[in-house]
């Protein structure tokens, strides 16, 4: 297949992106089930439905590029290359997890992959990214740093201060606003004086771009230009991805703020994974059977990750003070 690939990525790269998006989906859908059964301690916020944004952006990055994620961070971790088995153990609170089972869902980090951490504090990643971008600028290797925030977190002072800092230092930074339409359960009209995130960037002299976050190619193409600009010294930008989430703000959220039939419509007509699959198969880049094969492999990977996580030991009392302080 794919004698004539009409897309801006090779067939292998496209199938790799599809695999990552499918991995995020299966990972999150499995957590939805396992959390409902009471298997998982703490809290989880699922990224299912938003995969095109994470993978569309992260497919331009290497391990030297840093990202700061949000409380809804599993998708960012997987897209950035964090080991899925270690993530599952972390969420299950087991040894061998990304942070030895002591962080949980909202604190997964893997610096070897440039993943500086999910973050339970809204907007807290933005200043961290300014620091990472400043370091990247001094290193001079063309690396960048990316901050993800939700539409609600963009009201935090930390976020606005970071836009200012990134602008005046001309940092190789990208601020991604993942706009899934719901700031937890508060409407934007109530909480936000001017609802355009691009306008906020513009107020600090940063260019801002809006893309359809449910279209992998739209995100990939726009992010590619923005990231290239940052690598070449063009400075910071803001990217707003208009997207949808398939689960509640948190697991257990009754989602009474949704309209009747809204979720069914989102899953039927705005599923980024279905869209990508349709684009790849209709262009002849991949067959439905090839994609189904990837789906089976991913399912097995997630199943194995859960089995391994459940079998892994819990951290002991002796682990409480490890990885807390740095010795110089």
């Amino acid at each position, binding site marked *: 297949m794919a004698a004539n690939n009409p897309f801006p990525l090779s067939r292998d790269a496209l199938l790799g992106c599809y695999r990552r998006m499918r991995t995020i989906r299966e990972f999150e859908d499995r957590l939805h089930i396992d959390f409902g059964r009471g298997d998982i301690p703490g809290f989880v916020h699922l990224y299912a439905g938003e995969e095109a944004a994470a993978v569309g952006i992260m497919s331009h990055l290497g391990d030297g590029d840093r990202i700061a994620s949000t409380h809804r961070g599993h998708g960012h971790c997987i897209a950035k290359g964090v080991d899925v088995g270690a993530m599952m153990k972390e969420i299950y609170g087991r040894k061998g997890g990304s942070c030895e089972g002591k962080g949980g869902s909202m604190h997964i980090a893997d610096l070897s992959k440039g993943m500086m951490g999910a973050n339970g504090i809204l907007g807290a990643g933005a200043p961290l990214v300014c620091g990472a971008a400043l370091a990247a600028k001094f290193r001079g290797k063309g690396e960048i740093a990316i901050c993800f925030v939700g539409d609600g977190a963009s009201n935090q002072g930390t976020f606005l201060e970071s836009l200012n800092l990134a602008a005046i230092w001309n940092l190789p930074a990208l601020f991604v606003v993942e706009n899934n339409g719901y700031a937890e359960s508060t409407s934007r009209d109530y909480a936000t004086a001017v609802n355009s995130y691009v*306008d906020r960037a513009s107020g600090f002299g940063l260019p801002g771009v809006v893309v359809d976050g449910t279209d992998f190619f739209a995100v990939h193409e726009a992010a590619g230009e923005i990231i290239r600009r940052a690598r070449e010294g063009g400075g910071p930008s803001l990217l707003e991805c208009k997207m949808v989430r398939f689960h509640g703000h948190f697991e257990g959220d009754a989602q009474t703020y949704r309209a009747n039939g809204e979720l069914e419509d989102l899953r039927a007509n705005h599923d980024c994974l279905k869209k990508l699959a349709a684009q790849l198969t209709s262009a002849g880049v991949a067959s439905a059977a090839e994609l189904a094969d990837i789906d089976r492999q991913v399912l097995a990977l997630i199943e194995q990750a859960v089995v391994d996580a459940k079998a892994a030991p819990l951290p002991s009392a002796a682990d409480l003070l490890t990885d807390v302080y740095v010795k110089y």
Partner: protein
Amino acid sequence: MSNPASGNPCVGIIANPVSARDVRRVIANASTLQLTDRVNIILRALAALRALGVRQVLMMPDKVGISSLLLRGLARERTLGNAMPDVAFLTMEITSSAEDTRCAVRLMRAAGVCSILVLGGDGTHRAVVRELYLGSTADAPRIPIAGLSTGTNNAFPEMRESTVTALAVGLHATGRIPAERALAGNKLLEIDVNGGAIRDIAIVDAAVAFDRFIGARAMWKPDNLHSLFLAFGEPTAVGLSAIGGLLQPVSPRAPGGLAIRFGDGRAGSAGAIELTVPFAPGLIRSVQIAAWTAIEAGQALPVDLPGGSMALDGERELVFAEGDAVTVTLRENAFPTVDVPGCLHFAAQHGLFRHPATSQ
């Protein structure tokens, strides 16, 4: 449709909250018109409409912020005692996509607006005209539009202060100027795929590209172009229509259009000439021109590329595959616009803004 002379005219306003938001902000420093500026444009237009006696306005709602900012602005104007029309927001599902524009046009048509004021770029105006043109029966009244440019390229809407455009709309809406003097006919390009399976339009340009995906929609890579059809192209334009404008200008009011074939090596054709054009605001690029020819209205011109995409008024909109039969047909006098300079010249000539002096 509300009769412009009925004494109770209603004007529709469609303001795209996300025009001028694509990747050309990053690539070429294209302008970002802030929501607050867009709302101020609307408030100035509303003041002008009210001054001419338009008391009813129907607005497209949105979730991005124009509606909420406008409501705040109208409340402020009422507090200050400034006269404004009654502004009602359409009751409709908001999808935050071009479907909102199309839905708003349908509802405004059903409500009988006598004209629609549009804030956006070429793409927004195209969305409005598409619904008016493809969604109307042949005997339905033709609703004129008036454009305010808040987009990126803005080849179709003229750069003009909204107060002035709204005065022209108000003159027409209140019946002070007869339609034959207030309105102008416009060309468009009709796109047909597989004998009507897909029908679409472009009001300025329809570009055929090698890419077979929509992606980020905007066009900023000349190498992707296979061919270009123009309803008009002026030398003062920026964007795809500037290619025709600098090659063989065709004015919006002149008959005929232009078809251009690019030579980029991929199609096996070398360029006959190289043309330097403002491909987007702040983006000067060279394009290889293989051939160009004038086109006449009514000719169904085939797209001779086996699979690609079409950008309509600067944004990739549809993908076609090998075996799809795609044609482009120029239509003249296809939809009316309010002739803003014509209206105001008429008003000046006929003293429509003169009144007896009030005693001191």
